[in-house]
């Protein structure tokens, strides 16, 4: 059976070049970079090359601004705790209602611990108004943590403006850029971002590796306290194979950014247009312009997302849904609810996320089969009076 993987915002296939690059470090190059002997000594240079590649991908001024972590969540947690611990007199955090759980759950945890948390709203297109950020800042504000692009809808956030506002008030700005990195040209030098989190497995590296950009001059406290690794900013023996993999993935991502913006975007647009034309009562969630090039989130009214995914899966297609049944809780996606998407649409939302490996044939296959799947489920639905 044909397999069409359109769930790249969840995770991506590891690029073959990345597998090749990391293999020696799973075999003969197993040394610990902290060791004095030759086994360890020859590893360090590879770590630094990877650090340079990641720095280039995000446009960091220096490689030393990059700290390797075990995942995007660790990078986010490190950033947020560091910002709070370096500002012990401040107790206010500004974030949004549509953050990934890596930030949202931590913000809720901090709220229970006594921090004051402002969760900024988004409009019906999923857009955040930077003026709301400015209005929310108080003398007590320790941190602004707002994502760069939303994982469910692909909607882009105004991080350039938020950075300007944060800098003018002397407040630290952290952004979860896990979905943005590799999909647009990024230049943190011009962004006034203090802390930026990214994840390897969203850009064709394996799972188990992330990175945090810490702008030079940003006061920092480590999250994992241990050895002197990462210049004392992240204890724990370096995950050498994964770091090398992330370095290679970053090089490849940089080479393919233009393709994301041209070919992948065109495929996404064709998929979206085709589905909307073929299927009645379907609508796109999220602003069609201010959006990642690879993501479309479409709601099919009066059918339920998990049932759609199961039918798709039977035909070899992979996507994801914001329905209650798939969210792990019994409520539909907090992102769609924050945008005010009605329940009739929220439960039937499907996110298609493409990658540079997505082909024209993949899109054709989805366009061929989706209309029948939706029609079939609507036949069963008591709400569909089509």
């Amino acid at each position, binding site marked *: 059976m044909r397999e069409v993987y359109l769930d790249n915002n969840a995770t991506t296939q590891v690029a073959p070049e990345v597998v090749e690059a990391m293999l020696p470090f799973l075999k003969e190059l197993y040394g610990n970079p902290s060791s004095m002997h030759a086994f360890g000594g020859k590893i360090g240079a590879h770590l630094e090359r990877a650090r340079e590649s990641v720095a280039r991908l995000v446009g960091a001024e220096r490689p030393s601004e990059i700290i390797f972590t075990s995942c995007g969540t660790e990078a986010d947690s490190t950033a947020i705790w560091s910002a709070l611990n370096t500002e012990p007199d401040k107790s206010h955090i500004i974030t949004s209602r549509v953050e990934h759980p890596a930030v949202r759950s931590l913000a809720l945890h901090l709220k229970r611990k006594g921090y004051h948390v402002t969760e900024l709203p988004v409009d019906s297109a999923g857009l955040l108004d930077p003026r709301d950020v400015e209005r929310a800042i108080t003398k007590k504000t320790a941190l602004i943590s707002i994502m760069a692009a939303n994982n469910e809808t692909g909607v882009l956030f105004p991080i350039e403006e938020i950075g300007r506002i944060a800098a003018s008030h002397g407040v630290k700005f952290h952004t979860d850029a896990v979905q943005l990195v590799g999909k647009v040209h990024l230049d943190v030098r011009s962004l006034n971002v203090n802390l930026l989190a990214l994840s390897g497995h969203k850009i064709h590296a394996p799972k188990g590796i992330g990175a945090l950009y810490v702008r030079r001059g940003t006061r920092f406290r480590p999250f994992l306290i241990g050895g002197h690794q990462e210049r004392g900013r992240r204890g724990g023996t370096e995950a050498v194979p994964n770091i090398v993999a992330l370095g290679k993935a970053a090089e490849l991502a940089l080479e393919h950014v233009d393709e994301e913006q041209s070919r992948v975007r065109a495929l996404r647009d064709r998929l979206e247009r085709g589905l909307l034309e073929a299927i009645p009562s379907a609508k796109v969630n999220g602003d069609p312009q201010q959006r990642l090039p690879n993501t479309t989130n479409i709601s099919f009214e*009066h*059918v*339920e997302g*998990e*049932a759609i995914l*199961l*039918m798709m899966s*039977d035909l070899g297609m992979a996507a994801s849904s914001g*329905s*209650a*049944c*798939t*969210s*792990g*809780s*019994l*409520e*539909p996606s907090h992102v769609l609810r924050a945008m005010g998407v009605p*329940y*009739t649409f929220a*439960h039937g939302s499907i996110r298609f996320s493409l990658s540079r490996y997505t082909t024209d044939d993949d899109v054709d296959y989805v366009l061929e089969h989706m209309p029948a799947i939706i029609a079939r489920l609507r*036949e*069963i*639905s*008591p*709400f569909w009076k089509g």
Partner: protein
Amino acid sequence: MAWEYNEKVKDLYRNPKNVGELDDANAVGEVGSIVCGDALKLTLKIDEETQTITDARFQTFGCGSAIASSTALTEMVIGKTVDEAAAIKNQDIVDYLGGLPAEKMHCSVMGQEALEAAIADYRGLKVVHEEEDPDTAIVCHCFGVTNKKIEKAILENGLRTLEDVTNYTKAGGGCGSCIDEIETILEETLAKQAAAPAPPEPAKPKKLTTLQKIKPIEETIEKEIRPQLMADGGDIELIDVEGNSVVIEFKGRCMGCQAVTYTLSGVQEKLREMVSPDLVVTVGND
């Protein structure tokens, strides 16, 4: 989140039966809502003379297990008398399906509720509007679940934990602000249940004796289970049957195979489906 649906459930959501709405229905039951994420409309045709359900159709908005539960429900009630159908509980739907993931039990409860509503409609009974009962209060506002519904689910399904209650009724699965209240209801209901004398075990129809079980067990092993195991280079032997306890031995490549626990649960599932839902299968050569 990926759910582990068994083959029966998969078959029934892939190929649902009795979909639609009967034009000449004389019993209609509607439960759930689009806000809650699942809803079911059940229409029945009941023969007035014989009190037998001659036809049933469903329309369901919901996930795979909701669609499968709805098909199961319609298949189960067709041919039954109204009284027989009224005795169907959500666990019977689960058994028909050969099991549901714990988090999906509420789908079977929705089936039972739709059936209750349809029968009440047929009998001309006003469905007791819970909110008119002074003792009834909404506990979970996210899903509109009342204390009565929670108590009923606890008693009928032997629920023991907060998680069980959420799995069966969805209560507490939204914002979570009612969790304390659910725990109180759970404690009180369990205490009441412990204090009350055990209700007499309802006589189960067609309770099989050990002797009557042996033949269908042997047949199921022969026709359904052995061919699959042999294809993988293994084999199975029936050692003993006593009451609901079935002892088997794995032969050939099955022995010591890491998948043996999986195989064992598969054998048990199959025997429960084909012979009796109470069977417990163990391995004799452990």
